[in-house]
């Protein structure tokens, strides 16, 4: 009986195994060595720098995502000195010169979040690991924003949030590497409350229909607190499953509840469906408690208004920005967006465009793309006028369409005027659906970082990723 019956001796197998094992062990080092060459992850070495635009291209928020991507492409053009420069001309202070960022030409890669945390993290990782993106930005829902923000924190790149409205993004889930320009549910409630008071009085009974997930809850909590504060009574808060499609079973009970205001804490298709059905059920023509029945949609968007069509007429809500604002930044942005795409930008587009420019400006001021340098550049020691608070400290800028704005150092949240908008009675075209009722100044929507609706999280340390 020979042991080398197969024609290979034990020694050869051992040798082969050793070589194989050695290769397997060495393989990681062959690929990660590059990472230690710089003092931060994905430091650009050539003449270009790569941004990663992570937006929903498929799924329920694909429309918002497409508009965000348009805005990002425009921002890249303007940063590289192509086109008419847009907000680069109105932004102040600014260190941007229209020759790229830190002399490097801006390039970008894109990813599809599918409005799913897993897919969003996978595409963000691809952009960071494979394409060498030094900053990730975008997103059109809070779940995704929170998930990608914590990923960027762990991996060590900057995250500039797109459209995310939940209190948690800069509340209990805030991160040092993450920044949000968009407003939040608390600000919506604070801005809406005085307008609701003057329009509908202090003696009202409110009924909430709320999308049954994190954003809906923070929205409901915020609005409920603000309206109860001015004397309204909350009759009921009913949770509806996301994507319910048919809301009739939720709307019928409203008729007999004795409520005279319906508050729809819905977004996207849910809001389009629930609002349309509520109008079809004749809620708006009803008289309850001797008062006209009213409806409120706390978070408005142009794209949702287009979906709901006629039904938005006269309905109040809040918005981060509107293309019809009369300030230099807005006009410059709307002009170059309109020239390139033949339509006015949505508020999602504006917040994304501004985020890209703000990041580039911070890098230019810091003289580096290192995440910790960027975080430092956003710290600043400026403050907003008229707000007496120790936390009123950060980086103040203007000319980006929202008026004077503070990037607060304590939680990386922007503070700026919030718009209260109403569905227009006689719109001129499909882009002219909302009218601005009031521009509520930042001091009226101000809150402290330790407000109970935001408390519980901490920024932690910035992470350079190496």
């Amino acid at each position, binding site marked *: 009986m020979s042991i080398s019956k197969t024609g290979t001796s034990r020694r050869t197998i051992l040798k082969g195994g050793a070589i194989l094992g050695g290769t397997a062990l060495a393989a990681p080092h062959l*690929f990660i060595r590059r990472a230690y060459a710089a003092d931060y992850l994905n430091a650009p070495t050539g003449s270009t720098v790569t941004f990663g635009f992570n937006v929903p291209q498929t799924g329920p928020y694909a429309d918002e995502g497409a508009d965000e991507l348009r805005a990002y492409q425009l921002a890249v053009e303007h940063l590289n000195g192509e086109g008419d420069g847009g907000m680069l001309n109105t932004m102040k202070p600014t260190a941007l010169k229209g020759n790229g960022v830190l002399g490097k030409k801006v390039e970008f890669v894109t990813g599809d979040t599918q409005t799913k945390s897993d897919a969003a993290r996978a595409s963000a990782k691809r952009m960071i690991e494979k394409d060498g993106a030094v900053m990730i930005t975008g997103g059109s829902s809070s779940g995704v924003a929170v998930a990608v923000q914590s990923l960027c924190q762990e991996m060590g790149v900057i995250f500039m949030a797109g459209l995310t409205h939940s209190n948690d993004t800069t509340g209990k889930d805030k991160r040092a590497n993450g920044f949000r320009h968009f407003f939040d549910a608390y600000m919506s409630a604070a801005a809406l409350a005085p307008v609701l008071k003057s329009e509908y009085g202090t003696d009202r009974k409110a009924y909430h229909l709320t999308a049954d997930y994190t954003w809906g809850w923070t929205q409901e909590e915020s609005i409920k607190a603000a309206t109860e504060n001015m004397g309204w009574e909350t009759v009921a808060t009913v949770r509806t499953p996301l994507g319910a499609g048919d809301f009739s079973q939720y709307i019928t009970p409203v008729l007999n509840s004795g409520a005279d205001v319906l508050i729809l804490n819905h977004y996207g298709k849910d809001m389009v469906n629930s609002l349309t059905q509520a109008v079809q059920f004749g809620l708006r023509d009803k008289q309850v408690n001797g008062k006209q029945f009213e409806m409120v949609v706390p978070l408005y968007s142009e794209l949702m208004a287009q979906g709901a069509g006629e039904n938005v007429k006269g309905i109040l809500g809040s918005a981060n920005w509107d293309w019809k604002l009369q300030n230099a930044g807005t006009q410059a942005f709307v002009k170059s967006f309109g020239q390139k795409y033949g339509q006015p930008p949505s508020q999602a587009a504006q917040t994304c465009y501004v985020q890209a420019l703000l990041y580039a400006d911070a890098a230019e001021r810091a003289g580096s793309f290192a995440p910790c340098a960027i975080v430092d550049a956003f710290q600043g020691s400026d403050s907003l006028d008229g707000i007496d608070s120790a936390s009123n400290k950060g980086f103040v800028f203007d000319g980006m369409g929202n008026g004077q704005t503070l990037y607060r150092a304590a939680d990386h949240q922007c503070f700026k005027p919030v718009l209260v908008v109403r569905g227009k009675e006689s719109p001129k075209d499909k882009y002219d659906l909302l009218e601005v009722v009031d521009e509520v100044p930042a001091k009226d929507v101000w809150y402290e970082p330790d407000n109970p609706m935001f408390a519980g999280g901490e920024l932690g340390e910035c992470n350079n990723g190496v």
Partner: protein
Amino acid sequence: MMNFLDKDNLQSDIVLIVIFTIAILTMPIWLQPFGAAYPDLMQKFAIFGIFATGFNILFGLTGYLSFGHAAFLGVGSYTAVWSFKLLGMNPLPALVLAVIAAGIFALAIGYLSLRRTGIYFSILTLAFAQMSYNLAYSVLTPITNGETGLRVLRSDPRIFDGNGSETGPLVANLFGIEMTGLSGFYFCAVVLILVSWFAIMIFRSPFGLMLKAVKTNQNRMGYTGLNTRPYALAAFIISGMYAGLAGALMCITDPLAGAERMQWTASGEVVLMTILGGAGTLMGPMLGAGLIKYFENIFSSFNESTLESVFHFLPEGMREAAISVAGLFVGEGWHLTLGLMFMIVVIFLPGGIIEGLRRLAKAVFGRKRADDTPQRGGDTAPTGH
């Protein structure tokens, strides 16, 4: 050369597993030209390979088409994250607990669903999975953290390592090796190789034979006095445990568990993977998984400027046309490409990609061997001599 695809004896199994091991471990090298050699995607290849292999044990062997396997993936994920939160960031307890939890969950769902066969079974599993998804999304938010997804926080107890690492990153950590990047991939790859070996053993065992008999004719099995349900249930549980394992690995490489992992689309995806690669074959589901993940991650990332650089050799007018046509199939249109490919495979290669490879092998080396190697079964009987 390619006979390991056909023959089922120990020697060819060893050849298969050795080639497979080498192929998996050298992925960072040979995937370079495809632009897929970055850690996250390779981790996904390995993880979904495990998921599809496990699904194949149920679908490929017993013929029971489950439309709810994503539920087990989700259970595995949530268990793993809770293990991180409570016990610490070591992946091993997370793996073990996730497999156990998914197994128990599969026992419950399988016990109920397997009372029916065919379409009724599929609908039952789909209903259970969708129920789990909705529970995870909103009702069970205290356990699952709802839409935002369950993550590890600094304030978590982590009784075995919690106090020492207040500032370190919150990633899984195998005795000092962080489970991100390439080390995370190698961890998944080793698990993949082990469970693939286990799957091969199941395929070759008398138990596997019994499962194939269940698929072929369950009634006849019943008439011989044999109760087939325990076998089907065992296969269901094993495949649920594979899914739980895959779910745990997803959290080990990226400590976040989201509810959408349990959605019916995720269940459908693993069915696609298995059919695309070849249901009932050993390596097919894994190939299918790799292909789908490749499309999802690489094709979806192509945008206009990528296409521009691909087609820059064409003259002006043609380039525009080529870009606008190709643009339909990449970027947000990657689903379209996947759908077309799926149709082509199902229509022309009902046995999946593996059947395509087999035909190719036969065309290249096969003529002589087709004579001396009798084929199993009647489906691939040599013809045309």
